[in-house]
């Protein structure tokens, strides 16, 4: 690692880096790049909509542009910029040297870059996706979306999804295993806590997206039947699956922003955060509830009164923990001595903008109102208020707050104020009027509109606002580049802040800290500077003793297993849903299965778990265990062989992935399981290799891989029961 940081080659230092700080900065620059692209797409949209009947963009071009604008901003800008800041600051805030898995961390970044480029390559390969960022079926069927745009959308999201889940696992393991002495879970800075909870959301929600888009790809490329009603599938199931991911996704984009605000407001108000416990607890509440409100995106799809009531209830409930945070932030400002640097200006504006967005969200929870305003510009206004006025304002605040730490220089306050005011005025001008446009009947995703009274004027105001936002972005970029070169030197702690990242140089040395201050509370640097009134006199954050640290390999495996569990649950649910829609072709497919034979192979797989357990037990007692390990691999391979035999039998019987809905879900479910078995065999083989060559880490790795193997076997038992036995 030292050789890397010392390398004279700038390119090598940055492309081969495993340092979380450099990787964080890579994320930030790359997301800025994509922000530029997404922003240009937004400008094109606004210019096209400035006058009715505009011919600047053809409908085909416009539809690609708004799809790419949404996809880019969500997956290539907001998520990565938040992950970038987390990458840089979570290890620092907990007093760690780096992330738990630096190589995995680097891989996540490169997957992000690659995924983003792959998505944009579609422009050159016949057309970008043009079915909206949530790709509703059956519009995404090849007969309606004949270009490969949707396929690029799917593939790039798969790539991005793998990177995101890896980051999620990395953050969780980092926070749970690498905290410095005295940094207990109850003393975590709120940004670290919120990103920690957020990481669970990422790990559990992204697999639902992955399962959905995999099924979409199979539908499109293998002519299968999941989501296309013309072939017996269900378009509504796509919506359920997508929003099952989609709703937690919007909280994935909001929680880190809440964390940033929770860092900025206290520092610039010169007071500790008010109600830490409730902010931390409400974050947990939001994370839990976010999985239970997805169908509020589907109120207008005719789910029935009882379902609508349930989801309306949940959607209203989730407003409460968010509101609690807002009140606590205001209470933090109350009685403070507030310095209105640009960072604090953005954080204050966030409070107002996010509340507007949040309240318009509550309005959507009132179902009859949703029936009028969903899919109109009212919802476009809502999403931009929460994602731009909310998350991006928080990101801007974080940028002005943390830029000095990352670069050693201050951003210009003067340019910052220009950026701030241009943004606030431009943003509100663009999106406030869109509430009205929605209320007077303008639907969303339209490339043009009729010359109805008032529509043109309101659209023009919105477009004018967009130009102001464009100008504000120029100012920001100018500020960034200028300050990198000429900014005032920052010093260690220009804001006199209190969390650990400020207890080291700006930028920090490669190992992050030369010496950590003592950690006895939530604000180590406050305690150091105010020994007469340390936080511990007023608030109890427990002792510095901790519950025992968890073992890294098994924890990591458990998290990975959690994410894969969700993936399989999604596929199993799809299977069950379509089992009830069986037609004659499906009946035939089912009758072609052979439960007896598969039962034998199931027993073999279960046996392989047993031999693996024997291998580990043997190793614990000092024996080599390699024999049992080899047996496990052989048994697993036999299982795969059995699976292959079954597949061949089915194919010979004309039962293919597209012959019926049952066959589609059968092949998808068992196929992915077989793929997991195969990966498990590879992993076991690698462990075997490490053990034979007596390389370090072999035992620990086996500990994790064996959990994975047992998981794969348990999944098979469930699949076997549902697919082969239950009928």
């Amino acid at each position, binding site marked *: 690692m030292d050789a890397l940081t010392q390398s004279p080659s700038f390119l090598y230092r940055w492309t081969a880096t495993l340092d979380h700080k450099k990787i964080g900065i890579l994320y930030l620059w790359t997301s800025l790049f994509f922000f530029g692209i997404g922003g240009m797409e937004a400008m094109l949209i606004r210019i096209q909509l400035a006058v009715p009947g505009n011919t600047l963009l053809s409908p085909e071009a416009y539809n690609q542009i708004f799809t790419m604008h949404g996809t880019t901003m969500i997956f290539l800008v907001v998520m990565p910029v938040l992950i970038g800041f987390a990458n840089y600051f979570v290890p620092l805030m907990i007093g760690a040297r780096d992330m738990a898995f630096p190589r995995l961390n680097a891989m996540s970044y490169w997957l992000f870059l690659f995924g983003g480029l792959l998505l944009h390559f579609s422009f050159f390969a016949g057309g970008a996706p043009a079915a909206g960022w949530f790709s509703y079926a059956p519009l995404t069927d090849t007969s309606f979306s004949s270009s490969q745009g949707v396929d690029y959308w799917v593939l790039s999201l798969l790539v991005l999804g793998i990177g995101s889940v890896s980051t999620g696992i990395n953050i969780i393991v980092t926070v749970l295993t690498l905290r410095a002495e005295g940094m207990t879970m*109850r003393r975590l800075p709120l940004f670290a806590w919120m990103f920690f909870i957020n990481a669970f959301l990422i790990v559990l929600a992204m697999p639902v997206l992955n399962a959905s888009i995999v099924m979409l790809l199979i539908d499109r490329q293998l002519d299968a039947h999941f989501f296309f009603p013309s072939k017996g599938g269900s378009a509504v199931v796509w919506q359920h699956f997508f929003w099952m991911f989609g709703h937690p996704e919007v909280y994935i984009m909001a929680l880190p922003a809440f964390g940033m605000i929770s860092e900025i407001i206290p520092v610039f108000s010169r007071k500790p955060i008010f109600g830490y*416990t409730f902010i*931390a*607890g409400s974050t*947990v*509440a939001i994370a*839990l*509830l976010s999985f*239970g409100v997805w169908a509020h995106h589907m109120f207008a799809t005719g789910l*029935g009164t*009882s*379902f609508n009531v*349930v989801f309306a*209830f*949940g959607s209203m409930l989730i407003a409460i923990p968010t509101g609690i945070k807002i009140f606590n932030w205001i209470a933090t400002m109350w009685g403070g001595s507030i310095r209105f640097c640009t960072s604090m200006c953005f954080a204050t504006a966030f409070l107002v903008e996010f509340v507007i967005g949040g309240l318009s969200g509550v309005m959507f929870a009132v179902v009859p109102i949703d029936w009028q305003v969903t899919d109109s510009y009212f919802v476009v206004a809502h999403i931009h208020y929460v994602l731009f006025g909310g998350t991006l304002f928080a990101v801007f605040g974080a940028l002005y707050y943390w830029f000095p730490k990352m670069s050693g220089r201050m951003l210009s306050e003067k340019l910052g104020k220009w950026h701030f005011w241009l943004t606030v005025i431009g943003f509100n001008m663009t999106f406030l009027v869109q509430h009205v446009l929605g209320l007077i009947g303008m639907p969303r995703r339209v490339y043009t509109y009729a010359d109805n009274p008032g529509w043109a004027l309101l659209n023009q105001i919105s477009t004018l606002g967009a130009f102001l936002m464009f100008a504000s972005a120029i100012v920001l970029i100018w500020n960034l580049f200028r300050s990198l070169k000429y900014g005032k030197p920052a010093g260690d702690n220009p804001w006199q802040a209190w969390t650990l990242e400020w207890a080291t140089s700006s930028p920090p040395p490669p190992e992050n800290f030369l010496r950590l201050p003592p950690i006895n509370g939530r604000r180590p640097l406050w305690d150091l500077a105010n020994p007469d009134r340390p936080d511990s006199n*007023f*608030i*109890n954050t427990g002792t510095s003793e901790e*519950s025992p640290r968890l073992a890294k390999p098994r924890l990591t495996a458990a998290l990975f297993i959690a994410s894969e569990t969700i993936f399989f*649950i999604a596929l199993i*649910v799809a299977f*069950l*849903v379509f089992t*009830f829609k069986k037609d004659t072709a499906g009946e035939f497919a089912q009758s072609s299965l052979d439960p007896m034979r598969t039962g034998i192979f199931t027993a073999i797989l279960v046996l392989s778990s047993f031999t693996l357990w024997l291998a580990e037990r043997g190793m614990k007692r000092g024996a080599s265990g390699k024999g049992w390990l080899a047996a496990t691999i052989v048994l697993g391979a036999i299982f795969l062989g059995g699976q292959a035999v079954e597949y061949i039998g089915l194919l010979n019987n004309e039962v293919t992935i597209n012959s019926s809905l049952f066959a589609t879900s059968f092949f998808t479910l068992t196929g992915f399981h077989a793929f997991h078995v195969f990966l498990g065999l590879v992993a076991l083989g690698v462990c075997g290799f490490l053990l034979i060559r007596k390389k370090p880490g072999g035992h620990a790795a086996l500990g994790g891989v064996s959990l994975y193997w047992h998981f794969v076997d348990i999944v098979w038992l469930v699949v076997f029961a549902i697919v082969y036995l239950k009928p």
Partner: protein
Amino acid sequence: MTTQELIITAWHLTPISIATAVLGTLATAFAIWKKGRSTAPKLIAALCIFLFTIISPLGTLSEGYLFSAHMIHHLLLLLIVPLFVVIAIPGGKNLHTKPWRAIGWISGVGAMWLWHEPSLCSLAAVSPAMQATQTITLLIAGYLFWRPIMGTTRLHPAGALLYLFSACTACTLLGIYVAFVPISVCPAFAAASQSSPIIILIRDGWGFSAAADQQVGGLLMWIPACLIYFTAILARFLSWHEPQNTVSK
């Protein structure tokens, strides 16, 4: 029959339900005597809910008439009554090991899933003996389930969260299954005698079809149950995080 008549007259006073009620009362009295006065409020609360479940018109409705009532019945017996009992009698220290936690989770989740197996469900709805069995198994499963959360040696809040969240996922899957599936999960309810005055009240008076009944039943399995888990998670988190109220002077 009108709704008012239902509430006043249709109390579930069969021999077995009365016997169960008496047994429950005796058990409560015994427990209070053994464990001390301080357990009385919680145990009496548990007893009241228990009696309400068994003897009130809810008990009647859940015995083959209204599937949603049957679901409420389950929830009260599995999640509410045992919760009060565990809080009152947190239990000794010998039940804190990992196997007991696994048993607790499997009992709680398993009991819910088990009694939704169509043939078992129908049997429990119509056969008094099966019903008594169901009542006892739900109570015991509930007690074992809540022990690791509210008992003497509790799970760490993170563990509690995992435990409850996974239980919530399991009951969500079950609830969604029951609510969405086109077949009848508990045929005894769908096949209830159309001439019974209670059924007439439900179908005509309330306008509640068998399909709608199952849908609501599934939603009850899911939402209230998960809300209970959710509240337990938050309560555990708060008590871990801030053991005492602190205000700066």
